[in-house]
């Protein structure tokens, strides 16, 4: 309890907690879950966009998309490293992903059906992610906060690229504009879900906010996202698929409809459009890659033996 109080005091003073320092077990576990889930989201998040790389409509768009998906794998790498500082290996985390014991962001269980979805994902999904992540640059755990700094920088670049795709589509042919509107229709509510259910329903929030693992409430962030995104949609000439959406002068923000939380929980339970495909693809990649990883480590062992023998 003494240690706990001191720990809390450090956090309250705005100090960063570093890997080898003492921390409460709950703090460690929560961080592993949160950072791990974030890492998994980056990895699984390669798939919906990867789905359009081979069909990107120009060489330049193909390069931009490839670079983006590569960045996502890179983010996964930083985040797994941050997680490893908490005493869990990347392979253990993968195993938990593959067994379903750990989750990834539900948004990636939605399919990418047209090229406009590459725009919508950059604009809305990365936009929502940034909204979640910017405050986490000030999170109390050092390696996590530093990973966030790096990631946020790249994400905002991705968001601009996504918006630029939406712009081209929205200003393009009628067919392109239709794809853009359809992408917004499909990704709007799932993006709102990315902030999680209302905090009223979340039991861990208070502790996590005290620990500065969570900085803002889900509802705060969701409101902020809507406030920023609606004018962007208007600028694109697209219609947000919410008939209750209107500006509220009192709160200086938009009133908007809640997403369908039943759908959210169904997707979480595995009944989303692509849960099986996504997890299946990752499991297959892992299983198919086993001989590769074993080959590399066998070689490393042999080399170590050879070095020892040579000494």
């Amino acid at each position, binding site marked *: 309890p003494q240690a706990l109080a001191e720990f809390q005091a450090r956090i309250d003073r705005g100090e960063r907690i570093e890997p080898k320092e003492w921390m409460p077990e709950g703090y460690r576990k929560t961080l592993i879950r949160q950072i791990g889930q974030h890492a998994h989201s980056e990895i699984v998040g390669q798939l919906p966009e990867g789905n359009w790389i081979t069909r990107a409509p120009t060489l330049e768009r193909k390069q931009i998309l490839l670079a983006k998906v590569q960045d996502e794998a890179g983010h996964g790498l930083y985040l797994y490293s941050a997680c490893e500082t908490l005493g869990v290996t990347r392979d253990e985390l993968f195993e938990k992903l593959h067994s379903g014991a750990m989750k990834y962001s539900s948004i990636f269980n939605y399919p990418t059906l047209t090229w406009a979805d590459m725009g919508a994902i950059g604009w809305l999904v990365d936009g929502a992610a940034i909204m979640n992540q910017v405050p986490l640059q000030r999170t109390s755990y050092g390696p996590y906060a530093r990973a966030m700094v790096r990631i946020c920088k790249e994400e905002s670049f991705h968001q601009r690229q996504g918006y630029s795709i939406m712009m081209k589509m929205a200003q393009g042919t009628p067919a392109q504009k239709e794809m853009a509107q359809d992408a917004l229709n499909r990704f709007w509510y799932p993006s709102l879900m990315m902030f999680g259910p209302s905090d009223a329903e979340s039991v861990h929030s208070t502790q996590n906010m005290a620990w500065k693992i969570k900085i803002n409430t889900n509802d705060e962030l969701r409101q902020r996202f809507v406030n920023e995104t609606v004018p962007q949609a208007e600028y694109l000439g697209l219609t947000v698929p919410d008939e209750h959406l209107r500006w509220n002068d009192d709160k200086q923000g938009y009133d908007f409809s809640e997403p369908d939380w039943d759908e959210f929980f169904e997707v979480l339970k595995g009944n989303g459009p692509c849960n099986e495909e996504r997890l299946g693809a990752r499991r297959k990649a892992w299983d198919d890659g086993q001989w590769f990883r074993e080959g*590399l480590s066998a070689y490393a062992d042999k080399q170590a033996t050879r070095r020892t023998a040579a000494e």
Partner: protein
Amino acid sequence: RPAMFDWLCRLGDNALILGHRTSEWCGHGPALEEDIALANTALDLIGHCQMWLGLAAEVEGQGRTADQLAYLRDAMAFRNVKLVELPNGDIGQTIMREFLFDAFHFELLTELSTSPNTRVAEIAAKALKEVAYQLDRASDLVVRLGDGTEESHARMQAALDHLWPYTGEMFTADAVDTAMTEAGIAPDLSDLQTRWTATVKDILDEATLTLPERRFDVHTGGKQGRHTEHLGYLLAEMQFLQRAYPGAEW
């Protein structure tokens, strides 16, 4: 001039099609580092394609762009070697192909980077740095997997045996190659072959893999537009949006 256009298309199409195949791995690699490296390789190759096809379009002088060459030619007009259009197979086959192609690509770009044609030399010099890195990486993986477990050895040997009869096409000179060599723009392919063979032998030897005894030039014709059955499917996928929405901007 038509020879030069064809020859530049060969350079551009090799990069485009190999880049495409490599990009199919995105998100499906055997390890996170590999996912990143494969995406990076694909990205580099698409970049090279853009430069070579851009120059091809200029040389052709009919107002076409690199994108139009990439997206609006059908298989018969593609000029890549068959090696790069084969389906990926397992990751071992993907890496073995990259190695076999990079070892050629590296020698070719090394020569081209001192070509008297300054446009060619510039592009080659830019691409060479990336290809040198790719070759290092692929060679390293071939060695480690060849000399890894029994299974990884067997898979790498199977990959080599499968791909070997496609490698000769890179060195089989036709009128286009000869014209470019005679014009002093491109190197003699038989010189490249000598150096390629030396590199390949060295690495395979270190990888404890056995050079196949089979002819290495069984499968040719890609450079003249006679491809495998695989290319048509690849292009149908790659070109869909440009074909379905002609004239749209993206």
